[in-house]
């Protein structure tokens, strides 16, 4: 083949990496439809969306950077408290509060990223866990600021863009969370297919080779960890603003652990894994909790075991695999 043809081929296959797929458009249209058609589910869907954004942020760290974290709630919680406190201090504009909370958690992510750079997966699990535990204990010990075990009460953000007041049915909260999540998703999607984002995948694939082609590995990991912290902080801030309350629960270990489960369910490294995983997890949790309020954790656990036994493919691959089997069975 001629050089010109090869160049055209190469350009086409690289472009395909960042091309928008039909399923993606369908996904976001479905989200929009849920907002328009399911107003009575707004509270649950708002929680799903916020958790989805939170899981997306862990995907950036785990699925792209290859950093295993069991303490991602540290940033979620920090963002929630930042947003709550800012509102109480008079910064009532939700978007401004969101931006400031994101900046604060980004700073926290930047500082703690240096701890995460050291050591292997196991060390990272312990270090991230420790940071989250420390933050929770700090929040518990300064009730004068955080409200301690009683939580931060009286968080009353103003209307979104000065127009939409948060309502008790959560409709505005859901729309607001969805819009913020969508914008942040678009930014993340653009980021991961940029040369910079690609170099972060390279770090996960092979650190030695990445540094051998002259890419500074540590600096790349610091950037992605900081960015993910800001995303997690934004998710926490959304929760604080839409529920108008912050409790120690935002820093609890189960948040970090469940987040990991959601990514296991949804799959890592394609950004939708967190969103889909959060949706399935929360819906199943909600459904099971309605049936057996006491034992829902058992059923969730059983479901996970089955999922892992069946295969750890990405959730998006399951319909295709089923189709293949059906076709294979009836030739």
């Amino acid at each position, binding site marked *: *083949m001629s*050089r010109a043809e*090869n*160049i055209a*081929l*190469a*350009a086409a*296959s*690289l*472009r395909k*990496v*960042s091309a928008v797929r039909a399923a993606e458009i369908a996904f976001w249209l479905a989200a929009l439809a849920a907002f328009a058609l399911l107003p009575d589910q707004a509270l649950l869907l708002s929680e799903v969306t916020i958790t989805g954004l939170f899981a997306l942020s862990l995907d950036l760290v785990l699925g792209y950077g290859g950093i295993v974290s069991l303490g991602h709630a540290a940033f979620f919680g920090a963002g929630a408290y930042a947003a709550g406190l800012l509102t109480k201090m008079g910064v009532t504009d939700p978007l401004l509060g969101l931006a400031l909370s994101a900046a604060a958690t980004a700073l926290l992510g930047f500082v703690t990223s240096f701890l995460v750079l050291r050591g292997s997966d196991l060390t990272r699990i312990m270090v991230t866990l420790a940071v989250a535990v420390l933050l929770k204990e700090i929040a518990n010990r300064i009730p004068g600021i955080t409200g301690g075990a009683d939580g931060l009460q009286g968080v009353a953000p103003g209307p979104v863009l000065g127009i939409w007041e948060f309502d008790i049915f959560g409709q505005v909260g859901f729309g607001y969370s969805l819009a913020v999540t969508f914008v942040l998703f678009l930014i993340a999607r*653009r*980021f991961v*297919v*940029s*040369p*910079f*984002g*690609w*170099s972060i*995948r*390279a770090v996960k*694939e*092979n650190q*030695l*080779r990445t*540094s*051998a*082609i*002259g*890419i*500074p590995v540590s600096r790349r990991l610091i950037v992605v960890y900081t960015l993910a912290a800001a995303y997690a902080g934004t998710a926490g801030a959304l929760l604080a603003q839409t529920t108008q309350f912050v409790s120690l629960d935002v820093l609890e270990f189960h948040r970090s652990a469940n987040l990991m489960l959601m990514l296991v369910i949804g799959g890592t490294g394609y950004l939708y894994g967190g969103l889909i995983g959060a949706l399935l997890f929360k819906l199943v949790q909600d459904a099971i909790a309605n049936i057996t309020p006491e034992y829902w954790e058992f059923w969730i656990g059983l479901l996970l075991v089955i999922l892992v036994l069946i295969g750890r493919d990405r959730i998006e691959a399951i319909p295709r695999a089923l189709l293949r089997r059906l076709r294979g069975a009836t030739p």
Partner: protein
Amino acid sequence: MTAALETTNLLRRFGGLVATNDVSMCLARGARHALIGPNGAGKTTLINLLTGVLAPSSGTIRLDGADITTASRSRRVELGLVRTFQINQLFPGFTPLQTVGLAVSRRLGLDRNMWRRIGSDPRVIEGSVDVLERFDLIDVMNRPTATLPYGKQRLLEIAVAIACGPRVLLLDEPAAGVPEGERGEIMDGLAALPADVTVLLIEHDMDLVFRFADRISVLVSGALLLEGTASEVAADPRVRAVYLGDASHG
């Protein structure tokens, strides 16, 4: 003319062990230089010193006359000192095109861009295709690296290094583990290296060394035993002793 790569009295101790002992080497620009030596001679330590993985206990390293003894690993790559690995260090989930494309982006200083899409810069595409064509990887450029035959992976290992735009290339046993049937491909790959790139080849395969290199250095117990043309080295009794066993023992 300044040497492309020059070490002066390079020394590295690990506790009481001297792994690299007073090594002074000089590679002219465009040289095809081989470094041979028995197992444990300190070849890997020397590569690690040159690439900045280890810091020397004393001595200096110069690249095109500039002192790089204390430069960081990525800085050395930027300055044009690039290596390959004895055991493949590739990105299993990337295609060769994506792998080479990343290295070309880095060379052009585009790797810090967070907003452009990969493949949007024609210079990256053209640069990548040039390298892939040169090493006969164009037919497999869109297959995941993990699924390539071993010989192709070895070629990709060299291709990535060339994509970094090296002035000096350190080849660490490029033929290691390559089955007989795919050796020809590696030889072709080595022959396809740009003439202006200075190459230091570390290799056990004497056949490959004598075919490729015009000068050879022999490293024994961390120190240079001798340096000369291929025929000089082949004829030297000390080299024979090292490789074939000392006469007094056999």
